[in-house]
Every structure is written in C-alpha cells, then in structure tokens.
C-alpha cells in the first residue's frame, strides 16, 4: 500500500497557478525523487503535502487517511515530516535546542535524548556546534541541522527539499548515504533535488515535473536512461 498518494492537486498563489493536476505516490519504504526546473512546482508540492499551503483542488492521502485539509501539526503528528527549502533553522535557538524542537511531539525525554545523540553521531559537525546559535552556522551546517532536526521527530515519511543545496561534495555524498540509511530503517522519503544524479542514485523511483504537473515517472533506472532526463537534468553524455 502506498504511504502517500497525491491526486490531481491544484495550488494557486493569488493569481499564479502553481500546481495543475499534480499526482504522485510514494510507496511504503520507498525513496522517490522529484525532479524539475526552477519554478516547476516541487516546493509547492511538498508544502501542499505538509499542509503549509492549501490546495484548491485534489486530494492527499497519507497512510490511508485523507489529510488534504489537515493542519501542519496534525500531519507531523501522523508521522509526515518536511525539511523545508532554505533550511529555516531557528536562528537564535542553539543547535541543541533546534534539535530538541524537532522532538516536540515526543513526550519521552529519554527518547528525545537518544535521538538527538544519534543525530550527533551521524552529523558530528553538529555535535561540535552544540551551543552555537543556529543562525550563525555556515550554510552547509545549517542544512545539516535542518535534516538532523527532522530526524529527531522520528518520521515515517520524510519530505526533503533540496537537502544537498550548499553542501560540499563530500558532505553531499554522506547526506545521501544518510538518507539511504534512514530509509533502510523503514522511513519512506520524497526527495526534491536539483542534483539529479545524486538523487537518482539512491532513489527507487522518480518523477519529473513541469509547469505544476508530472510529465514523466518511472523507476530510477529508467529515468537515468531517459534521454529527456539526461539532457535536462543529468548533463548530456
């Protein structure tokens, strides 16, 4: 059964019609990549799924429950966690507090501590910066913090919006590895990436969206071989 089903979603920003009949599914335990040009509607799709923007039409089903009109916090409670575009760390909270906020819905203090420690071991740079204010971190460090924060909340489905943006090549590799590990533990992932190559390497399936709708979908292997994808997103061979 699919963890996430998005059906014929429409989103408007005032007069801008950003999504036009967007549909996709994320299966249980899958990593699904979402590719597309700037302005294609990737961020909007994630925002609609996590309840940040209200769709004007369409349906979003998470774990069999309709969450189309649910509030963001209810969606998080259901286990769907969104790492937003542009990192959005809490600037005057320390790194540690940022991570604790990630565990806001977890009542068990010991459990939060355990998860935070795990993030520190996965992303050791954050451990070094434990008491620094989030806003003073370097761009890449902030990106790590944003991902780490989401992991603390213990998601069942993780939405990642361009997690590799601003990361050094070495770190991109390790973040992708991290995503794979998390996925191996049973977390489904919907991954928006401009670094299509890196994304398709770890994804099971992928979609290409243009002008607010999917124009292509298939297994990662198929997409890697598709000439259109290659030309626009992977670089001509």
């Amino acid at each position, binding site marked *: 059964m699919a963890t996430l089903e998005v059906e014929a979603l429409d989103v408007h920003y005032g007069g801008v019609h950003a999504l036009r009949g967007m549909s996709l599914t994320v299966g249980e335990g899958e990593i699904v990549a979402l590719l597309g040009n700037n302005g294609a509607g990737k961020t909007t799709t994630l925002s609609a799924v*996590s309840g940040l923007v209200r769709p004007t039409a369409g349906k979003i089903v998470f774990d069999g429950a309709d969450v189309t009109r649910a509030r*963001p916090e209810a969606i998080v409670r259901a286990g769907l966690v969104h790492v937003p575009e542009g990192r959005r760390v809490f600037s005057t909270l320390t790194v540690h507090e940022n991570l604790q*906020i990630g565990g806001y819905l977890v009542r068990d203090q010991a459990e939060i501590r355990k998860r935070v420690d795990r993030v520190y071991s996965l992303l050791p740079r954050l451990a070094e910066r434990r008491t620094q204010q989030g806003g003073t971190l370097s761009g890449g460090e902030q990106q790590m913090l944003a991902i780490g924060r989401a992991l603390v909340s213990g998601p069942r489905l993780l939405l990642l919006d361009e997690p590799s943006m601003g990361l050094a090549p070495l770190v991109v590799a390790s973040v992708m590895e991290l995503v794979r590990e998390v996925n191996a533990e049973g977390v489904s992932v919907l991954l928006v990436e401009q670094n299509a190559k890196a994304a398709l390497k770890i994804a099971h399936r992928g979609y290409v969206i243009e002008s607010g709708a999917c124009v292509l979908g298939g297994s990662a292997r198929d997409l890697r071989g598709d000439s259109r994808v290659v030309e626009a997103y992977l670089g001509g061979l």
Partner: protein
Amino acid sequence: MSQLIWNGLFVGSFYALVALGYSMVYGIMKLLNFAHGDIYMLGAFTGFAILGAVGGISPGMALPALLGVLVVTMGVTGLSGVLLERVAYRPLRNAPRLSLLITAVGASFTLEYGMRAAAGADPQVYPLRLGGTSAEILGARITLQQIALIIVAVALMVGLNLLVTRTREGRAMRAIALDPRTSALMGINVNAVISRTFFLGSALAGAAGVMAGAYYGKIDFLMGFLIGLKAFTSAVIGGIGNIPGTMLGGLLLGLLESFGTFWLGGEWRDVFAFGVLILFLSVRPTGLLGERVTERV
C-alpha cells in the same frame, strides 16, 4: 537612600508583573499589545466585582480572600486575553505586523470605554484594603503587605521564567517567535501555543490589577493606559522577550523613577527616566539581557 531603593523596587515589581505578559506576547507575535494595560484594568474591576458580590469580609480573612479572588480573576482575564487574540489578532496573523497595532488600539479603546459604560467613569474604591502597618528595616519603611505582594510577584515571575526557558512549551514559544511556519512543521500547534501565551500573560496582568486595586484602593477605567506604557518600556529595557530581563527592566524603571524624583523633582522624573533609557540603549542596543542577534549575511 534605602527608602528610595525600596520604593523603586516595589513600584518596579508591579511594572515587571505587567511587563511580563507584555513581553511574552510581544516576544511571540511581535505585537505591541496596547490592550495589555487594559487587561490589567479588567483584572482590577473583575476583582472589584467579585469582592462586591461576596460582600463583607472580615479583616482577618483579607489575605486568604484576596488570594481566592486573585485566582478567579486570573482565570477571567486569562480567558479574556485568549478571546482578544481570537477575535482581534489571529485573523491578522498574515497581515503586515503593524496592522495588529490598529486592532490592538481598537481593542484598548473598546475595553476602556466598554468598562466606562459598565462601571461608570468615576473611579471606584476597592472594598477590601491591605492597610499598612509599617516596619523600619534597614532605614526603609516597609509594610508586610508590600512584602507579601513582592513575594507573590516574584514567585509568578520565577515560575514563568522556568516555563519559558526549561520546558518544551517555552521552546515552542521561542520557535514560533522566530518562524511560525517552520514551527508548524515541527508539529507545534501554533494557534494553541499562542492562545496559552495570551492566557498566561493576561492572567498575570489580571493578578497585578487585583493586587494594585487592593493595595492602592482606587481603580478606574483608564488605569491601564499609563502602566501599559511603562510595561512596554520595562520590557524593552530588559530585552524584549527575555523574562529575567523584563523583570530587571521593570525594577530598573521603578528605581529610575524613584531616583529621578529625588534628584530632579517630580516634574522632571520621566525626562530623567527616559533620558537614562535612551543613553543606555545607545550603549547596549538590545537592552539589559536581550539576545545579541548576529544576523548572518
């Protein structure tokens, strides 16, 4: 000298108590809640009404009775604060932040003149007085009531500070202050947290209102205006959104007023207080304990 300090601290602890609510609300929503002082007024009148309804209270029972009234009043003003936020502020959450200034001033007028319609323009006299036998301590005349009031105030403040800095609720408040959208992505129910913040802040203001009514004895429908202004000032001196800072800010303002009156006379008091405040802020632009925000570029 010690009298000056004591007077300043006592007045200052009232400012601080009202300022705490101001600061919390400001901290979380960046809202200059002009109606906050009027919630204080509402508290004073609520206490007045309850005492009036209960009728004669023997002097021996004054303090326990007052504590009871305090609790009920805090509930009433807390809920009023929540209602205020619901009606006048929440719908404007996404509007430019100064838009809230209009509804806040509107709410302030509504509360003030609503109370005028309900209770009249004449000042009212509290049915229950904390009269004063004073003792001389370290050269200052201090009444037992003053000490009791200060203890209540400090206890409320300390509790609040623990709440904000140590608990997840407090973290959520600070997160919302920084970025409500992302806070929602953390599973924080932004509306509920804001409501609770309003409840707490308004309850504190209500408590201060009852305490002022019982101690000073006179209440009127405009009594919240000036103290609202001073609360705002205290909150800023302390470093907005910072609870211990706000406490210190209130006390400092009280002391400034006390010493300003002494050195320059009553008519120049506020010039002195504001003058020092301006000088101080030009040296420390984020207040006493305000966080130095290093914006990254």
